[in-house]
């Protein structure tokens, strides 16, 4: 009963917070796409992309329109911690476009690199172009496709990427077929020994345990990257054994200046990358046969 009361209070407060956000923010675009409700809001100089406002009011991405290169969210900044493992990526794959801030930052940082982006929802691509300064270039292309078949096909063609970002969320949801062991094996197939995988996942709920077990089975040890200020957990791993902390620290020092203008506090990250097992290892691995992902989100 008490926890029910707590939950109710939580939901009410969430709702009020959402309401407050909506009241102050000016909605500049609203659209119901094939997959979700897309809303673009603006408060002052801060413009945000939201999916499924009515359910959870989750900011997918935000930009400061007067300082576009600044990354507003922790999880977006955290996605660049993979640079500590591969500091000079040449072929980058980003699954899930959102407002495009991750690929835009990559293309600014590494103008020579090829960046492939996979986004299932054409409407998101249009919104990113119209409101979030995203633009395709010769080296940065968007493929409107599901991430799983894209990666499977790339693997069959023998294509390799040296920096892979898995950021496929739709609102509060990771597609179930992109949580499984088989999928991670397909991701491994497009990686080389120098590649790094950065996966944005859940940090709460039972799914955390299941996901951790699955990543561990597929990759062995991985860096678990959490910040107290963020509800996200970023998994960072590679095919080879993980580098020692000293190496991370020295890479962070080398790169820190270059990342400053994006507000990425890279030098703060090495000490946050943990290999400690803080999940229930007895949880079942997620496979194509067993992946009730979103049913496991409830605790």
């Amino acid at each position, binding site marked *: 009963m008490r926890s029910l009361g707590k939950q109710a209070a939580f939901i009410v407060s969430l709702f009020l917070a959402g309401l407050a956000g909506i009241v102050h923010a000016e909605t500049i675009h609203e659209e119901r796409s*094939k*997959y979700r409700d897309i809303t673009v809001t603006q408060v002052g100089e801060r413009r945000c992309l939201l999916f499924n406002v009515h359910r959870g009011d989750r900011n997918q991405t935000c930009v400061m329109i007067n300082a576009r290169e600044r990354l507003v969210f922790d999880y977006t900044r955290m996605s660049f911690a993979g640079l500590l493992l591969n500091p000079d990526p040449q072929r980058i794959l980003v699954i899930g476009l959102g407002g495009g801030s991750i690929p835009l930052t990559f293309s600014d940082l590494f103008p020579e690199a090829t960046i492939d982006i996979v986004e*299932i929802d054409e409407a998101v691509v249009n919104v990113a172009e119209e409101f979030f300064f995203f633009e395709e270039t010769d080296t940065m292309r968007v493929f409107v*496709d*599901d*991430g*799983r*078949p894209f990666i*499977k*096909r790339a693997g*069959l063609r023998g294509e390799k990427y040296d920096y892979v970002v898995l950021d496929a969320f739709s609102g509060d949801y990771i*597609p*179930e*077929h992109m949580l*499984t062991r*088989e*999928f991670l094996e397909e991701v491994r197939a497009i990686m080389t020994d120098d590649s790094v995988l950065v996966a944005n996942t859940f940090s709460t709920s039972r799914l955390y345990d299941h996901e951790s077990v699955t990543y561990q089975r597929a990759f062995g040890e991985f860096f678990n990257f959490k910040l107290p200020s963020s509800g996200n957990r970023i998994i960072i791993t590679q095919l080879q054994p993980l580098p020692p902390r000293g190496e991370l620290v020295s890479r962070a020092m080398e790169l820190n200046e270059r990342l400053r203008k994006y507000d990425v506090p890279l030098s703060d990250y090495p000490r946050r990358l943990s290999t400690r097992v803080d999940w229930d290892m007895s949880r079942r691995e997620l*496979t*194509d*046969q*067993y*992946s*009730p992902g979103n*049913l*496991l989100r409830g605790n």
Partner: protein
Amino acid sequence: MSKAKTKAIPRAVIAGMAFVSGFCIMTIEMLGARILSPYFGGSLSVWGSIITIFMLALALGYLFGGRLSTRNPSAVTFAMFFIAAGVFSLPVILFADPIMRPIFMAIEDPRYGSLFAAIFLFFIPTSILGMISPYAVRLMVERQEHSGHMAGLLYFISTLGSAVGTLGTSFYFVLWFEVNQILLGTVAVLILAGCFVLLTHYVVNSSSVKSAQRQPKSA
């Protein structure tokens, strides 16, 4: 009343079977997206493919089931639908990857890829499952006047089965079991249902042999 050579099986059994068929159709359909998603993704078009193929297969099944029911409708044929549907569902469990892989390689567009995969995986068992409902109507109808009533009752029961199958699969079965375990369970249920119909048929008829012997044969 018993003009036919054999005695009909109880209506409650037929109605129960209609429930089972509705349940199994939707259990397989709900798992369809799960089976296709590793190859064709989770986009809306994959669901579209599955629902399209299930609808087409059912439509064809209704047509053929109805046709078949006009000639010597019998509980044995009715039972065979269940057993055949079960047997023809086995490739979904045993050969899903060998069936989907070449389609995935040959067709880049996930819409058509998933459509073809759905045809090869689900069309035959679903058509057979579709034959059950019209055939069941025929088995339950004794007089023309109540045919609408019986058809309505059967739609009600089989659609109720579909609702329970959908809910059970999407809320609970996927949480408790692996996809192939659920499919195997469905196959087992279908085959057992067929056997149960056969058994009922023979029990009903062996107990009616004596009384039938006293009646003059009409055909």
